[in-house]
C-alpha cells in the first residue's frame, strides 16, 4: 500500500469532516479546561482546606466534596453520560449534540482536576501556610497569594495532564452524538474497518496532544521559580 496515496485519499475524501470533528473535540476539550479551572481548582482547594488537620477543617464539607470527586471519577463514564441525560436535557433542552455532550464531560473534568489540585497543594511545604498565617492572611488570601502562587507550576502541569484525560474521555461522547475526532475515528475507522483512516485520525489526535503537552510543560517550567 502506498502511504502517500492513502493520505491523499483520506484527506481528499474526509478532510472536511475531519476538520469539523477536530473543531468539535476542540470545543469539548476547551470547555472542559475552562470548567476544570473555574470549578475544579476551587473544589480541590476546598478539599485541601477542609481536610482533617487542614486550615479550615470541616468534616461535612470535606466529606461531600471528596465524595463528589470520588463518585464522578469512579462512575463508568459511558454510564455517567447516560445517567446525566435527564439533567442535560433539562439544562440544554436536548441531550445530544456537541454542546449537550460537553455537560457530563464538564462534571468529570471538575472532579479530575479537583483531585489533581488537592494533590499539588498537599505537596507544598508547611512553611508556606505558616508564613501566611503569621501575616494574618485570611483564607482567600492564603489561597490566592500563597498556595496558588507556589503551586502554580504544578497546577499547570497537572492541567496539561488532565487535558489529556479530557481528550480521552471526549471520545466516548459519540454515544450521545457528541461527535469529535475520537467518535470520527470510531465511526469511520473502526465500525467501517477503514483502519488506515482510523490510525491517521488517532495520529492526528496524538500529535495535537503532544503539542499541548509540550506547551504545558514549557509554561509550567517557566512559572517555577522555586
Amino acid at each position, binding site marked *: 500500500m502506498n502511504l502517500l496515496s492513502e493520505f491523499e485519499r483520506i484527506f481528499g475524501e474526509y478532510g472536511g469532516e475531519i476538520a469539523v470533528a477536530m473543531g468539535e473535540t476542540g470545543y469539548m476539550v476547551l470547555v472542559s479546561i475552562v470548567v476544570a479551572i473555574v470549578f475544579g481548582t476551587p473544589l480541590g482547594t476546598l478539599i485541601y482546606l477542609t481536610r482533617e488537620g487542614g486550615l479550615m477543617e470541616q468534616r461535612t464539607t470535606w466529606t461531600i466534596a471528596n465524595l463528589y470527586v470520588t463518585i464522578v471519577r469512579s462512575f463508568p463514564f459511558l454510564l455517567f453520560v*447516560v445517567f446525566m441525560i435527564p439533567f442535560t*436535557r433539562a439544562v440544554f433542552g436536548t*441531550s445530544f*449534540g456537541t454542546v449537550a455532550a460537553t455537560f457530563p464531560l464538564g462534571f468529570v473534568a471538575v472532579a479530575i482536576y479537583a483531585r489533581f489540585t488537592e494533590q499539588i497543594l498537599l505537596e507544598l511545604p508547611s512553611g508556606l501556610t505558616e508564613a501566611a498565617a503569621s501575616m494574618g492572611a485570611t483564607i482567600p488570601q492564603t489561597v490566592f497569594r500563597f498556595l496558588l502562587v507556589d503551586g502554580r507550576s504544578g497546577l499547570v502541569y497537572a492541567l496539561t495532564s488532565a487535558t489529556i484525560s479530557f481528550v480521552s474521555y471526549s471520545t466516548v461522547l*459519540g454515544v*450521545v*452524538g457528541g461527535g469529535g475526532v475520537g467518535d470520527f475515528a470510531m*465511526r469511520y475507522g473502526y*465500525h467501517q*474497518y477503514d483502519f488506515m483512516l482510523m490510525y491517521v485520525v488517532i495520529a492526528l489526535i496524538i500529535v495535537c496532544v503532544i503539542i499541548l503537552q509540550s506547551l504545558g510543560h514549557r509554561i509550567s517550567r517557566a512559572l517555577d521559580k522555586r
Partner: protein
Amino acid sequence: GCAGGSGESGGSEGETQTLKVAATTTPMTDVVQAAAEAIEGPYEIEMVEVADYVQPNTMLENGELDANFVQHPPFMEEFNEANNASLTVIEPVYLTVVGMYSSKWKSFDEVPEGGKIVIPQDKSNAARSLQMVADAGLIELDPKADKWTVTVDDITSNPKNLQFTEIDIMQLVAAYPEADAVFLHGTFARQLGLTPADDALITEQDEQFAVSLVSREDNADSPEVEALAKAFHSDEVRAVLEEKDVPAAF
C-alpha cells in the same frame, strides 16, 4: 401530545421543517443520507449520528427525534416492553443477511468439543445466533421458550459442550480470527472479505429482522413521517443499497 416533536418543526407554511433522524453506522447512515436527498415536500432531514443502539430509542421516545433508523422490529419491541415505550415501525428498509462464520472450519460438524462460539450480547441478536446453532443441530433449545428471545440459559442439550461468549456487536469482527464460529451481520462479513453465500457455515435472512424506519405512535401518522417513509422507499435509497450489496426489503 406532540411532546416537543423536533425542536425546529412546526414552522408556518412555506418554511422547511427539519426532521431529525438518528443512525449509527453504515449502511444505515448511507440510507439516511440518500433519503435526505430524496425527501419531498417542505422537509429536510438532519441526520443525528449516535455511536450506540440504546440512545437513538431513548431520544426518540423522549421526543428529541422524529424517527430513527438503527434497528429491526424485535429489537424495538424489546425496548418498548422494557421501557414502557411507544415506538412503532414505519417501514422495513433492508434485510440483513446474518450468518455464523469460522476462520478454522468448513462446516459446523468440524467444530470440536468445547468449541468457542462468539455471539452478540443484545437479546434479539443473541437469540438469532442461538437459533442458527440449534438449526445446525449442535444444540437444542427449550421448545417452551419464544423462538426470538431464547438465551443461553434455554439450552437444554449441548453435546459438544460448546462455549458461548457474548460480546458487543461491534467487536464481533475482531473475534473472527480466533473463535470456532462467530455471528456476523452481512455488512461486517463483507469487511472481512467474506460473503454469506460462499463463506458462512449457515445463514439466516428472516424478514422480521429487516432494519426499519421507526418513529413514535404519536407521530406515526403525521405528514412529516409519511414523507420520511416515502423517502426511505425512494430509488435513491434502493440505489445505495444495491451499491452496498444489501437486499432491499421493499
